[in-house]
């Protein structure tokens, strides 16, 4: 029986095996490059001051001790950071979802004069460099009396953008017009049609977009840094910035603060990967 297998097939199998070995090797190296800085940071967070001086920074901690984490959490104002970040994320994502889907619904279902102009405005906005408009946006926020308050970032984050509208438009396109029409025969108003029929059907699209937006807001440092300097208004990002600025030499403590800030994103990522991937690829490939 053994001799029946042709030799070319045997060599094909060996080369397949070699290929998959090289493939795993490559992915192991990539994983190492990705994980190395994060792992070192985790090790450092659990080390004592003397240990950091004495041992190699690459070594595992002698004993995993939580004092750095506790101290960093308290001194770094992290609880306030968590609270403010959570408020910003939840409120702006909710507003953003409603506004984005309303815009897309109106643009898809109705014909009206200003439609082209509105689309053009959203398109223009996409080319504007984000960081540099801040030079003049800062003045507008100030003159509206929104400086150093939660409302400034909330309003900025709540605004919808072209990419979101595009994704919503694609989903609305697939919702049959007959649904609208039959609801109209029953005497439903456009408002009712949107909130009772269209909006619920857009929930999958909204979930994907909301998660992307939430990660963006959670990780943003620039807008809170510029518009909410007060200590009570710190987010996770700005709390970490202040903390690092104040104690630039205690690496155990710094790494602990970094770890605290990383944790929420890592947890969300592990739980909601599927949505994050589909949102990113849909946004980029189709938009």
């Amino acid at each position: 029986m053994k001799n029946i297998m042709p030799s070319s097939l045997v060599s094909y199998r060996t080369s397949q095996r070699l290929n998959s070995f090289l493939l795993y090797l490559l992915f192991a190296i990539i994983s190492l490059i990705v994980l190395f800085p994060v792992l070192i940071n985790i090790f450092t967070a659990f080390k004592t001051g003397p240990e950091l001086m004495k041992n190699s920074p690459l070594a595992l901690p002698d004993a995993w001790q939580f004092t750095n984490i506790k101290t960093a959490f308290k001194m770094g104002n992290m609880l306030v950071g968590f609270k403010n970040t959570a408020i910003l994320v939840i409120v702006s994502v909710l507003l953003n979802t409603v506004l984005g889907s309303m815009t897309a619904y109106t643009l898809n279902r109705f014909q009206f004069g200003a439609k082209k102009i509105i689309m053009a405005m959203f398109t223009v906005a996409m080319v504007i460099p984000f960081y540099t408009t801040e030079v003049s946006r800062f003045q507008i926020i100030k003159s509206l009396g929104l400086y150093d308050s939660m409302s400034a970032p909330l309003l900025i984050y709540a605004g919808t953008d072209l990419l979101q509208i595009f994704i919503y438009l694609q989903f609305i396109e697939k919702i049959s017009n007959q649904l609208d029409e039959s609801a109209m025969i029953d005497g439903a108003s456009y408002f009712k049609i949107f909130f009772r029929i269209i909006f619920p059907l857009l929930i999958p699209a909204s979930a994907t977009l909301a998660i992307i937006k939430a990660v963006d807001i959670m990780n943003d440092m620039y807008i809170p840094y510029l518009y909410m300097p007060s200590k009570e208004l710190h987010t996770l990002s700005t709390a970490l910035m202040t903390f690092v600025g104040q104690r630039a030499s205690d690496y155990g403590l710094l790494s602990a603060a970094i770890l605290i800030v990383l944790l929420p994103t890592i947890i969300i990522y592990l739980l909601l990967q599927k949505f994050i991937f589909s949102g990113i690829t849909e946004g980029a490939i189709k938009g």
Partner: protein
Amino acid sequence: MRYTVQKRLVIFSFLCIPVGLLVLFLLYPTVKLFQFSFTNWNGISESFEYTGLKNYITAFQTPEVWTALGNNFLYFILHVIFIPLEVMVAVFLNNKIKGSNFFRSIVFMPYILNGVAVAYIFSYMYNPINGPLNALLGDMNLEFLIRNWLSDSSVVNYSLVAVSLWRFSGFHVILFLAGLQSVPADLYEAATIDGASAFQKFRYITAPGISRVIEIVLFLNVRGALQVFDIPFLMTQGGPGTASTTFTVYTIQTAFKYNNYGLASTLAVILMTIIIVFSMLQSKLFKGRDE
């Protein structure tokens, strides 16, 4: 209520807030930016004077502006060099091997991590005294490579670009992977039956299949590289001296540190122009090739 009346009401009420926010926080500031760019405003006083093109002339004569643009170019070019590697990794990930989903998650992870945390992780990695990177080089008997990664002006930009590559390459890999997965599998089967080599399959099936994603990645790269801000701002404040200043860092410092809003607005307008010109060139280039 009649549907024609309702229609007007819906259009107005549904669009007034989103369009209002867009105008108030994006379009109006942009118009203001153009206005400020012709003034000597310091951002604080009530009054300012129009100075014509003076800011534009100053901007082009400031050496730091050119240094900054050069640094932005370094981010751009090194990310471009990485594109073939990213495509390669995506092609490998597209093989249905055990654990490819797991590797996909790992590869993409840096992109979603908090940018401030990432910047500080790498500040520690690059620490000259007992820092992990130098310790690693020491353990591998590569002592001659040990550097002051963030305070040596000849390497600082490469150190920072490395962080940017670490953070964004995985994102590009995932985009390429999405492009690859949209190529129908039977094309490959047909090519195999026709006796196409692996290279021919890549050249005639894979490459055209992902050309749109390459276009997107290049577009994101131009925009991203021209706007690099948080990595140098958090890790070096543009230093040592102005060695790692990028255009955006310099603009923000001009505005908020040196209170020169006029010049900062000019810089912002210049950046906007560069981005628009590059985007247009790029779409021309890709359109030209498709036809």
